[in-house]
């Protein structure tokens, strides 16, 4: 059990690094897919089957398609040449900023104390527990989600309309 987690976490970390360090944006996108699947596996380990399925369907499926189209919409020439000259101040400043950010993040994560969550009703799967809460206690947020999606649709049309005409 723990072994599987460490394997998945390792894959997620390594592929996450590969996403950042690729010179070609399309290769970054491909590594990101592997990363999404590893994270989906971690969700499964946490007994969050519904989230794991969504991770694959929405992220590895729909959002990845969008990423690819954006990359192809942008100019896909040769990868940009590495900056030949980098100021020493830029390097030192970057390293200091990165270390500081990591320390801040570690501190922030350590501060978090999660209250024990309500246990799921026995005999119900993860999807069913989510569904019961979503369609009863969280009725209003659920309905507001549809308005949010509506705004996204209108926004996409308005943004792209000038290009279409």
């Amino acid at each position, binding site marked *: 059990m723990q072994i599987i987690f460490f394997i998945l976490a390792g894959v997620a970390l390594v592929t996450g690094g590969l996403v950042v360090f690729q010179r070609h944006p399309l290769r970054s996108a491909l590594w990101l897919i592997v990363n999404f699947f590893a994270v989906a596996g971690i969700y499964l380990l946490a007994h969050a089957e519904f989230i794991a399925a969504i991770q694959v369907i929405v992220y590895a499926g*729909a959002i990845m398609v969008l990423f690819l189209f954006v990359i192809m919409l942008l*100019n896909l*020439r040769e990868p940009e040449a590495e900056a030949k000259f980098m100021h020493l101040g830029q390097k030192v400043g970057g390293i200091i900023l990165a270390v500081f950010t990591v320390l801040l993040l570690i501190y922030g994560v350590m501060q978090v104390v999660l209250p024990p969550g309500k246990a799921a009703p026995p005999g119900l799967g993860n*999807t069913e527990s989510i569904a019961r809460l*979503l369609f009863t206690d969280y009725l209003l947020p659920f309905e507001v989600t*549809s308005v949010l999606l509506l705004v996204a649709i209108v926004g996409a049309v308005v943004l792209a309309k000038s290009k*279409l005409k």
Partner: protein
Amino acid sequence: MLINYLPILIYMLIAVGLLGVIVLLSELLGKKTHTVQKDIPYECGMDPIGDARSRYTVRFYIIAMFFIVFDIEAIFLYPWGVVFKPLGWFGLVEMGVFIAILAVGLAYVWGKGALEWE
């Protein structure tokens, strides 16, 4: 519990393994001759026009946006389907409102002609 997902893992391994075998076999068995004629870009028998890495039209992007939005709509139908019976009419009306709001969006997109390719 987790053992239930073993078939999915096996399925994924077979998919990746098959890809690897195909690439490896064609690498091992294929002839590797390079001539000037053979290495020129191939485009249905004619001389290639322009660059293959041309920019895509923004229409693909719009379609992808709509795909994401309606994909997320579909995601909400899965948990709804699981508790459809216990919720009864209440759930049906609830989902009806949800779908109706998004149907307005679909009508808007349709009316604006954003689904048309030209």
